[in-house]
C-alpha cells in the first residue's frame, strides 16, 4: 500500500514537470505597424494621440511626449505602462513637436 502511494506520488510529480512546460501566458496584443504612421515628420500631435493614446510622460507643456514601447519579435510593438517601471519594455519613444503641434524630431531609445 505504501509502495503504491509512493509510485502514484512520483508519477504525479513527473506529470507536473512534463506538462508544466506547456503553461504559457496570454499573448500581449502587439502590432508590427504600431509606429509606422507615427514616426513620420509632419504628423500632428493629435493624430499620434489618437493612435497611441495617453503618453507615459509629457514635458514642456506637451511639446515633448514619451511612450514606453515593448516588442515581441514575432508579433511586433506594444505599449507598456509606466507603473511597471521598465519590465517587458524595450524602448522609450521620444517625440518632439513644434509650436503648431507638428512632429519635428523623434527617436526610439533602447532602454533594455
Amino acid at each position, binding site marked *: 500500500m505504501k509502495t503504491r502511494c509512493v509510485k502514484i506520488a512520483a508519477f504525479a510529480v513527473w506529470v507536473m514537470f512534463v506538462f508544466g512546460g506547456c503553461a504559457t501566458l496570454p499573448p*500581449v*496584443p502587439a502590432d508590427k505597424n504600431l509606429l509606422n504612421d507615427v514616426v513620420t515628420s509632419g504628423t500632428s500631435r493629435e493624430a499620434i494621440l*489618437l*493612435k*497611441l*493614446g*495617453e503618453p*507615459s*510622460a509629457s*514635458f*514642456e507643456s506637451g511639446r*515633448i511626449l*514619451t511612450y*514606453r514601447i515593448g516588442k515581441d519579435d514575432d508579433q511586433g510593438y*506594444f*505599449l*507598456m*505602462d*509606466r*507603473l*511597471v*517601471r*521598465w*519590465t*517587458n519594455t524595450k*524602448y*522609450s519613444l*521620444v517625440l*518632439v513637436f513644434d509650436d503648431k503641434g507638428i512632429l519635428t*524630431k523623434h*527617436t526610439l*531609445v*533602447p*532602454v*533594455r
Partner: protein
Amino acid sequence: MWHLTIVCTGMVITTISLAGCLIIPTDYYLYYSRKNVTEEALTGIVIGTTTRTEVLMKLGEPDMASQDETEVCYIASKSKAALVGGKSRDIPFIFDYIHFISFERNGLVKTMRLYNRGDDNLDPSHLDPLFRLGGYPIPEPHFSKSPIILPAQRE
C-alpha cells in the same frame, strides 16, 4: 557507501546553515530596471550646453521628474550579490544607480550627479532630490491596455 554520502551531505548542509549566510557575488540588472544609463551614455551630455530635449532624446523618458521639469532622475537597479541563508534584509545586495540631472530655467543642463543607493558610505542628504520627487514608483507587473479610442466627434 551511501551511508557515507548521506553523512557528508548532512555535514555540508549543516556547515552552510551554521555559517549564517553565503553570499555569491553577481552583477546583473533587475528585471524591472533600465539598462541604458551607463557612464558611457552620459558622456555626451555637457553642462551649460546640452538641452533638456537633447537629454530626453539621448536617454529616453526619465524615471522621475519634478513638477517644474528642472530635475530628472534616471535609475538603474542592479543585483550585486545573491544571498543563501540568513536574513536578506540585513544585507543590501541590490544597488540603485541614480543619475540625477538638473536644468536651468532656460532648459540647459545645470548639474549631473551619480548616486549609489546601497552604498553604506553614501551621505543620506545626497538622496534629498529623490524624496522631493516623491520616492519610487511601484513595480507591479501588468500589461498596458489597448490604445485609448476617443469618442466620435459630435456633429
